[in-house]
């Protein structure tokens, strides 16, 4: 048998196999977008888009059904923004500590710990929030129910912390040692070096970390379903129960009649959620690209 032909044939097979796997993710993406679009088409043609997005009432099962998504969007926004207040200080603080202050041994302990935290299934977080945190907060803060936006934000924040911490730490470690050395050699102390050189140089990397943490919080379903309380009304404060977009879909998909307006409206919620996370990812990508250019790390 001709050796050269065998080799060429093998190479063609490899190329084909890898091309197919590479195209698969693209195909999945296109498939998902198409599904979201086609399934939300009925509601999008039936109701004005503005009313869907900014309608204040989500009564999908009433006889006069209303599909105003504002309460859901506000619910998502409330828990996400709240989560940011938890995960940004803790995550960035952790990264700075690991990078600047921790000894070798502390670092060897902290980094895997953070990764384990990231690996805990979200249902476990939800459970923890429901059984431990919610009753505790109810007692301490004297609120009618611990299952509210505040608790959801807290738990989501804890969940997003590993993302923020580990990506921020990556960003800090991408800052070339030579910058730090240059700064110290010019007579800057450690704190000045950190605040004036290292953090600015890692700045866009840290922003990317924060944005991706936010993406994680927006898209999280299980936890918010369990601890956010589930009331589809616009909350007056953080201690009201809310029903974010994700948990709405999860809770109602089972009971919505297939092909009904309600069913389609849930897809529309999913579509909007998808667009939000897409936006978040694009922003993160743009920032990280700018950051690599700035540090001269190429594209």
């Amino acid at each position, binding site marked *: 048998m001709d050796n050269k032909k065998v080799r060429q044939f093998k190479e063609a097979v490899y190329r084909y196999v890898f091309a197919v796997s590479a195209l698969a993710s693209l195909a999945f993406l296109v498939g998902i977008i198409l599904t979201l679009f086609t399934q939300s088409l009925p509601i999008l043609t039936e109701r004005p888009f503005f009313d869907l997005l900014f309608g204040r009432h989500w009564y999908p099962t009433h006889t006069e059904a209303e599909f105003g998504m504002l309460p859901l969007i506000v619910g998502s926004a409330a828990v996400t923004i709240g989560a940011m207040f938890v995960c940004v200080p803790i995550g960035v603080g952790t990264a700075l500590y690991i990078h600047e202050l921790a000894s070798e041994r502390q670092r060897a302990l902290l980094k895997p710990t953070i990764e384990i935290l990231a690996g805990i299934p979200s249902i476990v977080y939800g459970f923890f929030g429901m059984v431990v945190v919610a009753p505790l907060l109810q007692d301490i803060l004297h609120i009618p129910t611990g299952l509210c936006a505040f608790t959801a934000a807290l738990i989501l924040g804890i969940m997003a912390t590993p993302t923020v911490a580990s990506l921020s730490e990556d960003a800090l470690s991408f800052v070339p040692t030579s910058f730090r050395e240059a700064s110290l050699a010019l*007579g800057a102390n450690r704190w000045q070096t950190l605040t004036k050189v290292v953090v600015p140089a890692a700045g866009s990397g840290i922003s990317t970390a924060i944005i991706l943490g936010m993406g994680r919080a927006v898209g999280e379903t299980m936890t918010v379903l369990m601890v956010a309380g589930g009331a589809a009304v616009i909350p007056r404060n953080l201690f009201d129960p809310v029903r974010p977009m994700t948990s709405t879909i999860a809770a109602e998909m089972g009971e919505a009649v297939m092909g009904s307006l309600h069913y389609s409206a849930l897809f529309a919620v999913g579509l909007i959620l998808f667009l939000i996370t897409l936006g978040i990812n694009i922003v993160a990508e743009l920032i990280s690209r700018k950051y690599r250019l700035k540090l001269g790390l190429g594209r």
Partner: protein
Amino acid sequence: MALEAKIRASDVHFYYGQTRALTGISMEIHERCVTALIGPSGCGKSTFIRLLNRMNDLVPNTRVEGRILLDGKDIYHPKTDVVELRRKVGMVFQKPNPFPKSIYENMAYGLLVGGVKDRGFIEHRVITALKKAALYDDVKDRLHDSALKLSGGQQQRLCIARCLVVEPEVILFDEPCASLDPISTRKIEELILELKKDYTIVIVTHNMQQAARVSDYTAFMYLGELVEYDRTDKIFTVPKERMTEEYLSGKFG
């Protein structure tokens, strides 16, 4: 030529963990002279120069023994202020390392972290230093552009100028031309010869010709030891040690 010892190292040993990198280095570095450290890779010349401004403090698990005196004061004394030491002993690194900031911000950095607030004073110092580093004409119209837009040679001269702004007494050059082309290298060498009128200079170099061109004194190091240290003209013409002669004639290295 003034022969005051600006820096005096006596019996300096240095360890990375258990590994000894320097063995009993003793030498005097003379004021307003250029002292070159030469030797094959791994001989400890960079390690030694980084001891002079305590840059090795950043490397974990290291240990220094012996004494290094700057103007008669022990720089490894527990009460030594490292920040103050580094203002007196500036350093230029192997690879140009401007901050990803504007040229002006790079230049002003040393003064800002030193607590200088007077803008006029800063500007005056920045311009003086840029002129001293023969960079002013290259950059005067784009002081607020990113320093990373400069060529490699210009970046290195910026790093030299940045170091001059804080008015050090000693400048350490750790293979400053390692990543530069011959023309940029020549500019840096000319600059070093110009700077030695005002500063005490220590330069680590791989390039023996460079040592011969710029230095007054040359130290030849091998495997963490100081083999020979003398006036550059003597080292290059009548070395006392056979090993020095063999290295200089290219028999190893």
